[in-house]
């Protein structure tokens, strides 16, 4: 079994699977159960200033969207930071860390943009023996209205400033958690790095309304007939999170800045994808909230098997492995030609490929009277829609036309030579190949 030991910014944990700062990490009871289940670390639910804690609504905090069989695909919440007294949280963190010295406890923090506030809370959390702090610049609801959370994360100058203060007032590693509710994720990441951050974590939740009650006409989740936008997470946000992680991983000025990947991770595969796109470890929330803490067992066994199969001896060998393959559109090889191929053995004859292609795409799927579906290479642009709508995995695939063969659609012979848009004759700005 592969060694899953993770060393993220000097914090060693038995595996790279941490629980994100969220309801599952709000209490000693939960975090102990998580560690017993096997989680490598937990980012404690965000602590605020000492004094009267924040209050939460007393109605629904979560909204959701579902896929087939009511599988939860996206979850939205309007819960605030911890509503438990700071002292109690700190005592619990101390006890848990003492009992689980090999697991990471990270304190997520959110206090007003004021150096003294940050200094004070940093001193107190340091006494818990925790392994690091995560600055919550991400929560997009409630606290942002009070000038915290994503209100900070959306202004790179604030991000840099608070990060600097934190580095000045603690020796603990500082992770800056970024909000995705911005135009260019690289800007706040750069500010965090310039402020001295040891790492960034992303993504926090996305502004969202999950649904509208068509009887009361209130956005969901609704409180007494009114709704407010919440933060969206779960499997539905994974593609957005992957892109943002990858954007940072391939940005030159951010090279070497460790990334903790968050967003829709529910299986070992999701985790491995984040690692491959540059995350040093991953954080999980919604999947645990959907299925309970024991999902980590599958994540551990799956990642371990994968690493064994690939011959990777450490997580580091996987981290960033896909980053060199992330490019810009203009660099994609326009001489690469593929066509859809339908495996007749696997085809169950539902005809969705036909409907999708015929109605909405290129009329490249043929259908015989006895429901044999085929591909008209003369029309197929290899768009992949048929693959994506087919209910049977592996039934339709995109197969590359080997160089030298004829592309019936264009009437041209496929060439082996790489050529992209920057060299294309239709591009007014093309530079002729030397």
């Amino acid at each position, binding site marked *: 079994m592969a060694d899953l030991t993770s060393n993220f910014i000097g914090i060693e944990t038995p595996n790279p699977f941490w629980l994100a700062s969220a309801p599952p990490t709000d209490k000693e009871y939960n975090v102990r159960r998580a560690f017993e289940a096997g989680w490598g670390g937990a980012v404690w639910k965000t602590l605020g200033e000492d004094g009267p804690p924040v209050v939460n609504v007393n109605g629904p905090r979560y909204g959701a969207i579902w896929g*087939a*069989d*009511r599988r939860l695909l996206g979850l939205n919440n309007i819960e605030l930071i911890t509503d438990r007294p700071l002292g109690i949280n700190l005592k619990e963190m101390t006890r848990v860390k003492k009992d689980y010295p090999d697991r990471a406890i990270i304190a997520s923090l959110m206090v007003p943009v004021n150096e003294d506030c940050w200094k004070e809370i940093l001193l107190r959390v340091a006494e818990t023996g925790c392994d690091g702090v995560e600055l919550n610049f991400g929560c997009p609801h409630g606290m942002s209205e009070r000038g915290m959370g994503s209100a900070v994360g959306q202004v790179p100058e604030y991000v840099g400033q608070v990060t600097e203060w934190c580095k000045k007032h603690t020796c603990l590693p500082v992770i800056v958690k970024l909000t995705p509710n911005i135009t260019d994720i690289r800007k706040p990441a750069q500010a965090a790095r310039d402020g001295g951050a040891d790492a960034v974590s992303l993504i926090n939740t996305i502004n969202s309304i999950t649904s509208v009650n068509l009887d009361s006409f209130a956005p969901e989740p609704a409180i007494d007939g009114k709704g407010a936008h919440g933060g969206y997470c779960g499997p539905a946000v994974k593609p957005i999170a992957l892109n943002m992680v990858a954007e940072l991983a391939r940005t030159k000025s951010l090279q070497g800045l460790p990334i903790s990947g968050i967003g829709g991770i529910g299986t070992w595969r999701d985790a491995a994808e984040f690692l491959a796109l540059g995350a040093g470890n991953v954080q999980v929330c919604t999947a645990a909230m959907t299925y309970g803490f024991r999902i980590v067992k599958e994540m551990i066994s799956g990642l371990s098997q994968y690493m064994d199969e690939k011959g990777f001896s450490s997580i580091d060998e996987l981290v960033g492995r896909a980053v060199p393959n992330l490019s810009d559109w203009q660099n994609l090889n326009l001489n690469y030609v593929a066509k859809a191929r339908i495996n007749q053995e696997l085809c*169950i*004859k*539902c*005809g*969705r490929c*036909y*409907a999708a292609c015929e109605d909405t795409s290129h009329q490249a799927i043929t*259908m015989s009277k006895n*429901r044999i579906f085929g591909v008209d290479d003369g029309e197929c642009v290899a768009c992949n829609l048929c693959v994506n709508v087919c*209910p*049977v995995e592996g039934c339709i695939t995109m197969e590359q036309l080997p160089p030298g063969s004829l592309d019936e659609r264009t009437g041209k012979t496929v060439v082996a030579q790489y050529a992209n848009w920057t060299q294309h004759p239709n591009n007014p700005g093309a530079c002729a190949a030397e």
Partner: protein
Amino acid sequence: MAISALASGIVPNRLARRQYADNFSDLHPRLNDHEAMVAADQCYFCHDAPCVDACPTEIDIPLFIRQIATRTPEAAAKTIFSQNILGGMCARVCPTETLCEQACVREVAESKPVKIGQLQRYATDALMDSDIHPFNRAASTGKKIAVAGAGPAGLACAHRLAMKGHDVAIFEARGKPGGLNEFGIAAYKTVDGFAKREIDWLLQIGGITLKPGVRIGGNLTIRQLKADFDAVFLGIGLGGTGRLGLENEDMAGIRDAVDFIAELRQAGDFSTIPVGRDVVVVGGGMTAIDAAVQSRLLGALNVTLAYRRSLDMMKASRHERDLATSKGVRIITGAVPVAIRGNGSVEEIEFEYSDDNLEPTGHKFAIPADQVLKAIGQKLADADLPETENGKIKTTGAGRTSTEGIWAGGDCTLAGDDLTVTAVAEGRDAAEDIDRCLMS
């Protein structure tokens, strides 16, 4: 008081009272909301869906399932009823395993089709329970049409004609309408008087006059109908039954399975239905299965279903056969009845094994039988009919018979296949054709 299950002869009260209720409860109770949502989620919304092709009434199944999934079961019901006004009964009695569900791509993919029949019931029950009739009758055309037979074919034809504004009179030989829906079909498939409720609901369209107790060919001839009405539709089913052609065939204890089932369906109290201890059902179709299973449910100790050809030639589907064997019915195939013995009433029936061409093998065996139910096919009862072939009415196109102005559909025609859903399709299509002919 229950008579011992061991008592010989044809007697009622073989079971404790409670057992009757259990035995004759709904075979497949209605899906609850959650079950329906889970089942509806399974549908892939196929293009030109094979299930629709496999449905004799061509219900837009992917559409109605999508309407269930989006919590508009009433709209789903309307989708169903617009093609099949007896969609409620068909949801209960269709052999879906050989029709829509056999064609379902998930049957191909996972040997587990979408529960189309049960979803159809979920939708149709939702609308019928709210007592909404989703169709309006068009302005009166002044045309009068006679429908002979108030079974599935006649009812479907009458409804469609009434919807188009015609005045319809249905003549039914029995004392009440419904045909095999009311007098055939196993009781556990259509509980709580559903057949009657469905007809009451269907008649809400208006313009249909029901004339029960009038047998065509008796006091009222087809010729007379043709003279009195603008068009005639025959949906008279198969009133007659076949015979084994054996000595002692009219001995006490031997009867037609259809009569046994009709009696059972009309009984308010199943405990009053007498049944043998050792019942032998002769036949291989749905009627044979329904008679055999219900004999067991009434408390018969030994029930044997004997079919003269091999298992794969039985008309009863595998699903039906499995149901029978799960209820304790023993199925014997390749067995032709050759002798009936008894002293005043039947005591034993002898069979000879034969091949699929019914060539005897010389190997014989006898089974004790205090009751023999014959389910060996029905035939057209005599009447002054249009041209027939193989004992059934010949039709072309949408149910046109050899006589102009007379249409036919359902089991009485060559095109019929003993299925409620086929009868509905034929009745509906004949109505459309009648309407075209009368209005052009």
